[in-house]
């Protein structure tokens, strides 16, 4: 089991022949034909919705393709379940770690298949063999780690390395690394790359997904780009530039459709002013001003610190340093209660988990944030709440049926509107919209944007965050670009395009 293939052969060659996948009317992947050679590191790039994650899911056996063939090492394969992909020699390492922190490295590697020995007819775990096997594997991969050490004592970087060691114990021919570095510091990234190079020498086909441009040039041999579900092209990294890759990802970029918006008056006092706000390890020295009626977009890749920044301003997470002024008044001692009273609202990114109380009625969810405003002297009644509920249902066009039914019975788009309505009932002066369009259908997305525009027209100042850069370009009046916890640029959405914005969000590419 631990015999890692030593010869560089074609056993790990991975070829796709006209592979496609449709979800209903949506073509997520169309006639994808490509060959990933063994013994090389292949970058897989593409913006959200390009079909990249569909391809990963097909390869991991999570979803089945609608058509086409997958050939591994000259043999055609069909995956009905993740186990099939596993048996074909494909191992995926996800961004989220799947280790049990309290167990040792060795136990984690062999979890679910611990070696057993029989003493007097009683089967028990063979600890000696387990740690011997694990140690051999670790040494084999050039890792100086004690197999008996609990995983919880390791840094996140080493945990990621153990995760890959675990993957390698299955002796895969194809290793899929899905943004493995997003949580790692530079030194840990180097450790990881050393491991990847070692595996490459052994003939493992490595498919590497990342958002960091500089990593492409450091570790990858080729780059394959998907766009709108189709293969946009493949390029040898030796011949590539950051620009050429970004161009392949976005193609001919058109300017987003924006409604005509009136000029924002930025001469007066800012509604929200942030000065050198810092939360250690999340974001640092963030300063900006937000004006009445303005929608300020924050663009950045996953993990850039956008959500963390908004949560800290809102008082949901600590803020280590910095100053916040609301309406010119200095804010002290942040808690969500205080920020709410000061006129701030926040619609969180994951509405299912933290935006709504799923078991309570739509009615109650629309009044959660405004209880003390609706009630007088602490007394409240459903009749008293009803005007507030009805107003939001009408204004936001929430399809709720009976508002006394649990909010969990609503569609994603309507649930999102309930989250927004809950906050609009507090009549805020500043609203933070964190990924308001995630997981909602196209029509609901349009409606949500229109709600934001309408509110801004009435004077609401808003922060708008979305992973979809197109949306930030479309919705915002002004855009701050965030990278690794810092504001690195401010752009005017009418003066930029998707390609440029994306390039700003990525970390620095190869020096020209």
């Amino acid at each position, binding site marked *: 089991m631990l015999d890692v293939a030593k010869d560089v052969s074609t056993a790990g060659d991975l070829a796709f022949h006209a592979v496609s996948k449709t979800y209903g009317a949506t073509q997520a992947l169309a006639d994808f034909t490509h060959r990933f050679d063994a013994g090389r590191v292949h970058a897989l790039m593409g913006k959200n919705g390009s079909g990249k994650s569909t391809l990963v899911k097909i390869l991991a056996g999570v979803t089945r393709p609608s058509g086409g063939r997958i050939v591994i090492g000259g043999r055609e394969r069909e995956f009905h379940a993740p186990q099939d992909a596993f048996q074909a020699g494909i191992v995926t390492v996800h961004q989220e770690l799947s280790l049990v922190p309290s167990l040792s490295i060795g136990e984690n590697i062999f979890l679910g298949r611990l070696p057993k020995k029989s003493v007097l007819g009683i089967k028990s775990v063979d600890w000696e063999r387990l740690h011997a096997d694990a140690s051999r594997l670790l040494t084999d991969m050039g890792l100086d780690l004690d197999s008996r050490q609990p995983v919880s004592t390791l840094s996140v970087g080493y945990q990621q390395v153990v995760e890959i060691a675990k993957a390698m114990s299955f002796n895969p021919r194809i290793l899929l690394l899905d943004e493995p570095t997003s949580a790692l510091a530079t030194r840990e990234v180097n450790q990881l790359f050393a491991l990847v190079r070692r595996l490459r020498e052994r003939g493992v086909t490595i498919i590497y997904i990342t958002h960091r441009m500089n990593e492409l040039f450091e570790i990858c041999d080729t780059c394959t780009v998907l766009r709108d579900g189709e293969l946009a092209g493949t390029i040898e990294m030796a011949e590539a530039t950051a620009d050429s890759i970004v161009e392949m990802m976005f193609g001919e970029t058109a300017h987003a459709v924006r409604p005509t918006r009136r000029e924002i008056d930025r001469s007066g006092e800012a509604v929200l002013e942030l000065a050198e706000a810092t939360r250690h390890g999340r974001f640092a020295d963030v300063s900006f001003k937000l004006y009445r009626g303005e929608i300020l977009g924050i663009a950045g890749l996953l993990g850039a610190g956008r959500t963390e920044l908004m949560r800290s301003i809102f008082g949901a997470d600590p803020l280590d340093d910095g100053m916040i002024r609301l309406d010119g008044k200095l804010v002290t001692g942040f808690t969500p209660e205080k920020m709410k009273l000061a006129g701030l609202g926040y619609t969180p990114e994951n509405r299912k988990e933290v935006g709504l109380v799923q*078991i309570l009625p739509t009615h109650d969810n629309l009044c959660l944030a405004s209880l003390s405003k*609706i009630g007088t002297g602490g007394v409240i009644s459903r009749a008293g709440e009803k005007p507030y509920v009805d107003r939001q249902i009408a204004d936001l066009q929430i399809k709720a049926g009976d508002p006394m039914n649990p909010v969990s019975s609503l569609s994603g788009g309507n649930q999102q509107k309930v989250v927004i309505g809950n906050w609009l009932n507090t009549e805020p002066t500043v609203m933070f919209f964190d990924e308001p369009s995630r997981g909602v259908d196209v029509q609901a997305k349009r409606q949500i944007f229109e709600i934001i525009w309408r509110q801004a027209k009435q004077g609401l100042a808003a922060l708008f965050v979305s992973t979809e850069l197109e949306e930030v370009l479309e919705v915002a009046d002004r855009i701050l670009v965030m990278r690794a916890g810092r504001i690195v640029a401010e752009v005017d959405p009418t003066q930029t395009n998707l390609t440029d914005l994306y390039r700003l969000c990525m970390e620095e590419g190869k020096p020209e």
Partner: protein
Amino acid sequence: MTASTSVSASGDPSDNVVLRLVKAYPMEIILAVLVVLLIFTAPGFASVRNLLNVLRTGSMLGIIAFGMTAVIIAGEIDLSVGAGAALAGCLVAWICGALSDSLGGYPAALLGFVLALMIGFAVGFATGKFRQWFNVPTFITTLALFTALRGAANLLTGGFPLPTFPPGFDFFGGGYLFGIPFPVYIFLATFAAMHFLMNNTTFGRAVYAVGGNMEAARLSGIDIWWVKSMTLGLTGALTALSGTLIASQIGSGTGTTATGLELDVIAAVIIGGTSLFGGKGRIWGTLIGVLFLGCISNGMTLINVSEYWQYVVRGAIILGAVLLNQVLERSR
């Protein structure tokens, strides 16, 4: 409204009315059936005297159970109410013993009672804060209090009943007002107050939100720890109230009273349909649960079911009530 009408219109109406009634009021119907059964099978059950006694016993339990309902809806638990009730009674008796001579009997009793209320509230509130500051689950904190408060009660009394109450003090726990046991008035007043608190105040709404989704409530600007701590504090105060009534009824502060009361209180809340997962439950349901437990205990005693069997039956009832709620939940 439109959604529910359309549902009933789609099926056979006559069939549905019965079914929907059963689904909407399961415990009410079961209680009614039980009462009818007991009237015919248990000798003396239907006598006014017996029913008033059932109510009196139920009142002691119920006063605490209404507070416990709020605690459980808020997603917490309090295992210390039995010990807390004993301590409250002993404290009142102890103060009476120490200060009756200098202050007079009733002022001393009143002082003891107010002290017990305040301590009950403070200990409950602190339990919630303990969870906030040190992340100690209330299950653990109140389990510790469960033994510690019992110990404190016995320390106050020295292990013997303290019959130090002023003459006539037994009225509060054992007397009648207009022919109805005095604790029943307190019980009904507590019911009304808690029903109002949970349904018609912003605090009550916050309790449901906090228990239903703590993080969503926090991000809606609700002070979740204040809400949780207040439900626990409130229950502590109600426990002190009930404990004083119990001590008054038996005529002394006794460290060993109300043993196992916490389990009966929690059982009543659960039988009333409140979910231990939080966010779901009604004060009205707890009222039904209290009456149900009272009737079944009394009925079993009247038809000479052995005490040991009574325990077994009560256990089965708790499990059955939870199962029933789960099944009904799934069919909705």
